């Protein structure tokens, strides 16, 4: 099946996740595209089925039941739709899919210098939707035999090897190639094919690389990802990763050959599709944004700042399979600081482990929900720290300095994530998309990310960003329509003054002017206080803030600011808890503060 030239009016898209295959139906209603129905079924990559298409067919069968549209003829998807033949409820125009089943795309990357080509290779693989299992470099501190053992034991789906600028030294990259050859790496899936290896390093080393790796791997050579120190060129290598993902990795996974034949556009790795839709929206709206998808095993963070897209995967930060690792990495105290009651350490530890071994369970009591949302805050926080460390400018680049830089000498490779310039946070994943109250999603993200100044927040309603990402490659209008109307749920705007003060001290005075028919509200926001004003999804308000002398609202300390702010399902949140956010150190005071905040915003049932 191929994408037809005729306009698309009925589209089905699936995302084959590691546990669930999610199908959505998109239909053109009048002049706009809308997501109309959704079905899901367990993914069937593993035994006893070992055929991904079974799960796809099951999810489509559920779509048929719900929508009344006949999509399947036996095990064949009916295309195109039969509207022209007088059967408007039969067939679809295109079927598209993303996949992260079977563990997604797992890669190992290698570069000459860790903080330079090593990081560029890592950014390249992450941007292509891969999980990076390890980054090898000449200077990574490991002895040669340790590197070789590591390569041998990892069994990635593919390797990306880079190193050196074009025309520069070949020694280091050849050395890395020698280690890879010595390890005789084998792919994760399938015994009978060679491991795909992409070489995207110094072009002068290509012949040597061919000699060393040509027979031991399925070698593909592409443009250098760092042709000169001052510039990254990630696109050609990313394209090769996608090609090899389809040709080698997916082709080895059970049932994918059939699935590839069914789809009207290349199957994309799920995170690559999510990244694509985020990048598209950020560019269209001229926004700086952070997107997060917090799952059971991993947390993906995407950002677009100044048009530069970055993605990271925190492989073991998640809320079911990896929940215990969040505890190990964040520490018990950091989790407990968000919990509005006390609990014995042993009980909490056992509960978290029980969630790890039975990951599909859901919180049944309020205290369990509060614990799970506390863990989510820490997973989100840690994943953003990880993201900031990788979403940086290029390291090792000589900077031109002017006279004005004399007093501020910044090293190269600073993070691109500037929370003050952040316009929008998009949350996704069960705990954010399906929180019983939307304000819970909003406060989890505000607590974890500590946005500064004015930041809009939203959630993905039913996790359809992967579908829309791949759809954007076929029909951008359809993807945008559905993204704006059905996918994004705007929660509102958070206003967070920067600065700290004692509880009860004046933080800022405010005046909020709403539209016609609603009286303005004014008052004083004190430190240690949260205030929430209802402001609907399509509503806007103007807020004037007159901060205390030590408080900054993006225009400098003590300077008044007036801004238009957007509403959402939660509204306008004034956060006077200070930035950086500091919770009271004493347990009783902390519990009292949490309880007060939760009541103010109506976080939980009474």
């Amino acid at each position: 099946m191929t994408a037809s030239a005729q306009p698309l009016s009925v589209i089905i898209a699936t995302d084959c996740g590691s546990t669930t295959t999610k199908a959505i139906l998109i239909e053109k209603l009048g002049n706009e595209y809308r997501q109309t129905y959704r079905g899901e079924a367990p993914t069937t990559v593993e035994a006893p089925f070992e055929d991904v298409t079974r799960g796809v067919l099951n999810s489509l069968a559920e779509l048929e039941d719900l929508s009344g549209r006949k999509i399947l003829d036996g095990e064949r998807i009916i295309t195109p739709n039969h509207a022209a033949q007088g059967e408007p409820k039969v067939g679809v125009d295109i079927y598209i899919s993303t996949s992260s089943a079977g563990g997604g795309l797992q890669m190992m990357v290698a570069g000459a210098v860790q903080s330079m080509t090593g990081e560029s290779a890592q950014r390249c693989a992450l941007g292509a939707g891969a999980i990076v299992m390890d980054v090898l470099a000449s200077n990574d501190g490991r002895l040669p035999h340790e590197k070789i053992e590591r390569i041998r034991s990892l069994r990635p789906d593919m390797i990306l090897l880079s190193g050196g600028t074009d025309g520069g030294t070949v020694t280091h990259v050849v050395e890395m190639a020698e280690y890879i050859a010595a390890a005789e790496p084998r792919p994760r899936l399938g015994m009978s094919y060679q491991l795909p290896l992409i070489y995207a390093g110094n072009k002068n080393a290509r012949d040597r690389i061919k000699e060393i790796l040509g027979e031991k791997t399925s070698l593909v050579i592409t443009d250098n990802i760092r042709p000169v120190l001052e510039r990254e060129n990630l696109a050609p290598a990313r394209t090769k990763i996608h090609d090899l993902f389809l040709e080698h990795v997916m082709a080895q996974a059970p049932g994918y050959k059939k699935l590839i034949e069914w789809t009207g556009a290349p199957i994309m790795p799920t995170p690559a599709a999510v990244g694509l839709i985020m990048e598209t929206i950020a560019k269209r709206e001229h926004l700086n944004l952070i997107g997060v998808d917090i799952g059971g095993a991993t947390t993906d963070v995407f950002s677009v700042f100044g048009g530069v897209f970055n993605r990271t995967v925190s492989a073991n930060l998640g809320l079911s399979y990896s929940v215990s690792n969040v505890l190990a990495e964040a520490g018990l105290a950091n989790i407990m600081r968000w919990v509005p009651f006390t609990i014995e350490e042993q009980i909490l530890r056992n509960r978290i482990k029980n969630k790890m071994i039975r990951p599909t369970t859901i919180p049944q009591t309020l205290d369990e929900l509060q614990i799970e949302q506390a863990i989510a805050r820490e997973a989100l926080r840690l994943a953003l720290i990880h993201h900031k460390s990788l979403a940086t400018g290029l390291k090792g680049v000589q900077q031109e300095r002017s006279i004005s830089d004399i007093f501020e000498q910044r090293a190269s490779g600073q993070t691109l994530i500037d929370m003050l310039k952040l316009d929008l946070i998009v949350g996704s994943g069960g705990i954010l998309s399906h929180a019983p109250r939307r304000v819970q999603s909003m406060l989890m993200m505000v607590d974890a990310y500590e946005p500064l100044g004015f930041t809009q927040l939203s959630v993905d309603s039913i996790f359809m960003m992967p579908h829309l990402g791949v759809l954007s490659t076929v029909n951008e209008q359809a993807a945008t329509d559905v993204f704006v109307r059905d996918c994004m749920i705007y929660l509102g705007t958070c206003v967070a003054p920067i600065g700290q003060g004692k509880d009860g001290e004046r933080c800022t005075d405010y005046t909020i002017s709403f539209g016609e028919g609603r009286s303005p509200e004014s008052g004083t926001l004190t430190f240690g206080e949260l205030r929430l004003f209802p402001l609907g999804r399509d509503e806007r308000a103007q807020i004037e803030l007159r901060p205390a002398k030590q408080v900054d609202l993006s225009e400098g300390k003590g300077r008044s600011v007036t801004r238009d702010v957007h509403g959402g399902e939660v509204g306008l949140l004034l956060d006077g808890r200070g930035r950086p956010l500091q919770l009271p150190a004493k347990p009783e005071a902390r519990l009292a503060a949490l309880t007060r905040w939760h009541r103010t915003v109506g976080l939980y049932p009474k």
Partner: protein
Amino acid sequence: MAHAYTPGLTVTEQTVIRKRRFLPIPGTVLAKTGDRVQAETVVARAELPGKVHVVNVANLLGIAPDEIRDYLVKKEGESLGRDEVFAENKPFIKWFKTEVRSPIQGKLESVSTITGQVLLREPPRLLERLAYVDGTVVDLHPGQGVTVETRCSMVQGIFGIGGETWGELVMAVDSPDKTLPAAQLLPTMKSKIVVSGAFLGIETMRRAREIGVAGLVVGGIHDKDLRELLGYDLGVAITGTEQVGFTLVITEGFGTIPMATKTFELLTKHVSQKASISGTTQIRAGVIRPEILIPWKSDQQSAGGTGPTAPAAERSGIRIGDHVRVIRDPLFGRIGQVAALPTDLRQIETESVVRVLEVKFADGTSAVIPRANVEIIEG
């Protein structure tokens, strides 16, 4: 979702299981189709390539990388002894001679004239794949391994650590709700699979290691004891390679939780029999749970008649009357029977709207529980 339920853990008196005993790399298969094998029988063998050592000869001899071939006294592929000279310079004065000696016994693998490095490889290491269970070889996969079939009783645990082992089954307590104190572990339990009830603590684990117990099976343990046993906080449930001195299988979860009566009774029935256990757990897509397999002896097999020849097919869903285990607080660990399966969605205390079921417990009480929070006791 049509089939939303948590598949349970299998506890069954009789099943036929097939174990694929494959090598991680191609090798030689030693068993033949139809062979009767014991757990300890070697069914396949392979040679793992030896470790690689890197020696930068160019640096050591102070020469350019592209010259190193002129200084080698051994060729690629040749064998080397430990401390044997494989490269040297040729100075006019003997006194200035530098020799490069091999740090290992093995062979000279490759030479790089770009980096000036020489790679030396240790001899291959023998890797043997054992049968793991007493049974019959039913399938042979040339170069890869065999499939061993066994008719057995089977208990799946929820979580374990440590790899495959086997030994005689011993009951250390007489009731599924009892805990196992360290003093109750006796030297006679060496190399055996010891079954406890609701709980055992770190002292008991230490004692098991001292005695040389092969495996421990228990309802629950505390996370803090696991941390102490491993020496680190386990972040992700992917286990099987730990070396703690024994294999541990927990059947219910973390905390003090009585072992399901059905499990305890099954294990009691097979006391003194040989059991194969594995703590390997992988809670990701393609779940692997720890297991206890008690192969039937040949006379039992003939008495067993023509049972199923493959694991029972996946069941289609949960039914009224099914035995279920509650797997989330506040009723974690309780076992009951499904009394009702309302089809409509219900709002629970958290305000989430979910599918629920009603469970009746042995004491006559009942509770409404989200379907995601129970698992069927299968078998």
